[in-house]
């Protein structure tokens, strides 16, 4: 099985979490036998260069083994353009689990990257120095055109990571369904509809797995949830205490209107249930 990502990138700062991020990037680099590009947004001075080399050395990396790009300007924009220019497969970033209301709307660097990722994006929630292994992975199933790639990369990631279990989550909602009660439909009937649809979605997931030859040795759970997309999955992932949630990247840049009338992904961004891997389609 091929590694899901071959070219990784990490934006390096000197924040309290940067060492932990770097350590995780180095681990994934080894795991996937991939290249690693470090991006620093800020002026290139001898002092910063020295600090950078020291930090790299402290976790067993050195510049000939990793590449380093410097850039000036808006951090999110610089990171985006460097990733596109270097054809990066996976960008790694750290993020707070939850941000204040104003920051959520204006957007921190991490949230900006999530809303318009240049490539697949791994967001580590409050990374710590100890190495995190993704034993429990959850992945969203949409059955859209991007779905096979997302699920395929999830399985490949899980294979390299020796993940113990993968939970595939299918969220769906039938709008206006409860209003049928208004016209004489009983609650039993609506509940029975929902149960039937849940069964139908679980069957579809089973077939999807078989169709894409994804029945590997990893334990697989299939869950169909009735409710608002994004919101239901986020809560489920949180309750399950999953280590990683994989979801397709938004097909186009999420804007302010998507925060006001929440887009599915925005429910997740609002308060991250765990580390998040967003897969950008080919």
């Amino acid at each position, binding site marked *: 099985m091929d590694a899901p990502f071959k070219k990784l990138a990490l934006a390096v700062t000197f924040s309290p979490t940067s060492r932990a991020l770097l350590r995780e990037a180095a681990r994934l680099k080894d795991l996937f036998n991939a290249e690693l590009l470090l991006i620093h947004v800020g002026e290139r001075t001898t002092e910063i260069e020295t600090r950078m080399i020291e930090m790299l050395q402290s976790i067993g990396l050195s510049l000939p083994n990793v590449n380093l790009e410097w850039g000036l300007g808006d951090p999110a924009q610089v990171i985006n353009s460097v990733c596109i220019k270097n054809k990066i497969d996976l960008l790694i970033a750290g993020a707070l689990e939850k941000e204040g209301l104003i920051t959520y709307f204006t957007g921190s660097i991490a949230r900006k990257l999530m809303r318009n990722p240049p490539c697949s994006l791994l967001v580590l929630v409050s990374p710590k120095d100890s190495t995190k292994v993704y034993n429990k992975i959850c992945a969203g199933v949409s*059955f859209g055109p991007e779905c096979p790639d997302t699920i395929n990369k999830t399985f490949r990631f899980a294979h390299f990571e020796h993940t113990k279990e993968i939970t595939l989550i299918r969220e769906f909602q039938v709008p206006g369904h409860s209003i049928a009660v208004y016209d004489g439909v009983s609650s039993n009937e609506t509940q029975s509809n929902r149960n039937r649809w849940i069964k*139908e979605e679980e069957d579809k997931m089973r*077939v999807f797995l078989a169709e894409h030859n994804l029945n590997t040795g990893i334990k697989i759970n299939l869950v169909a949830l009735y409710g608002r997309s994004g919101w239901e999955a986020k809560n489920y992932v949180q309750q399950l205490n999953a280590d990683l949630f994989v979801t397709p990247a938004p097909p186009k840049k999420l804007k302010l*209107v998507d925060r006001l009338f929440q887009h599915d992904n925005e429910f997740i961004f609002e308060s991250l249930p765990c580390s998040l891997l967003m897969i950008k389609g080919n």
Partner: protein
Amino acid sequence: MTFTSNDITILLLSMAVMLFVARGMGELMRLIKQPLVIGEILAGIILGPTLLGFVFPDLFNGLFNKSQSSEIILQGITTISVVMLLLVSGIEVDLGIVIKQGKKALWISIMGILFPFTLGFLMAWSFPQYLGNTSGELHLVFALFVGTALSITALPVVARTLMDLNLFKTEIGYLIIASAMVNDLIGWIIFSLILGMMGSASHSLEFGSTLTLIFAFIFIIFFVGRRLINYAIPFIQKRFSYPGGILNFVLILGFLSAAFTEYIGVHAIFGAFIIGIAIGDSVHLRENTREIIQQFVTNIFAPLFFVSIGLRINFVSNFDLGIVLIFLVLAFAGKIIGCGLGAYFGKMKTEESLIIAFGMNSRGAMEIVLATLALQVNLINEKVFVAIVIMALVTSISSAPLMDIFVRRIARKTQFRNLLRPELILFGELSNREQIIAALSQIIERKLSLSMDSISSKMIEREQSFPSGIANYLAIPHIHMKVREPVLAIYISSKGADFMATDGLPSKAIFLLVTPENENELHLKILAEIVRKFQDLNNAETITRAKETIELINMLRESNAY
């Protein structure tokens, strides 16, 4: 003014009779699969001056006496009912789904409003006398009202129809619901503005100030109120008794918001509708809570309101065939052409466009609410009111059967049971997967005159990387190709062939499925349905033992259908 014991007795008795007859007629309508609202209106006609008042005038006058006190009570019930109806209507408007459905829903809803609105407006503006406005008063407002009256779609009737036709969880179902939601939103805003223009509510503010306040109100509710409500609902659901707490919260907000908009010179319904949207938008509002709110309104306020309509109006003496026919023609033409064109511009197929058009044509309860309010403020007379009620009923009754014609046509092409065609079923002893795939490809090509030279080779190539053996003697070689509709061919092999099934059993039932490109969900749905029929080993063995085509088709149609 005080209520005597006699007044109270008669009031309670009349309400009991109204609810009793409404329930009876409603259940009757359910039996014949018609909207509940038709039964409730008929109950009003039976109990009102049209029938009871005509046959037993004393009984009618005794039961529904028109004393000042009973009039006030009836007026109060109507106002509360209308506010409640609009509140629950708003709760079901999901702006997120509207945005998600994107351009198609936007096209359908915009055309579904613009076309009937323009048609109605022009007709009422140019020939008001034909639509019952002989005095020429409130010319512009009347024309705006007729336009709006033809534009609003009734969500509850649409929802029920979609459920009956098993269309709820389909792309078309989503589109109809999303479009009807936008339709409602725009329609009610326009109607509220019309009522504001008439100064029907408070006269304390000028129209310009009212307009500013309306938009400020919408802005505050959508951008601040929505968030606050979203924080409050989980707290209430957790801390207060359920469902009493949340039901109270919804009603309190609904009444407060309705009172505010009434105060600023817009009708109370507007406030109820907008706050309903904000409440319904909360991710914390449970599905069963929504249903409890719906039940509360449906079983108490809606019947009282719709029956009271028949109590006030004589449907025989106010029946004007000319006005009724004009409204019917305008209603059908406006919605069907408008929504049909919208769906067509949204790049939907003709049959799908027609399903959407007929689905959006049902007016039902909302149109009657609108007409009642217009009658209350003397914008329309009784004859126009009766014509609008009849139009609402006819469009609601006709919606499901007209949709069904085209639903059947589509279902014929996409539903699993309809994909089972005797000429595409083979029985034999082949035990080599390549040979079976070639045989099935050949009959597809021959019977359907499709040019599928590559089907066999593509299937075999795919089979080598992704074997299609499932389990329990089942294999489903499948592929997406440039076809207009799904095609399914079946081979029942007495010996079985190795399709590398996960349980190691030979595949005796081989379903070769070809679906159109970009129809991923349909593809998976058909696959899932086939797999489901083979989940039980005994069932699978019975199917694989079939010897005749018809026997096999019957088995597949019967077992474990969704």
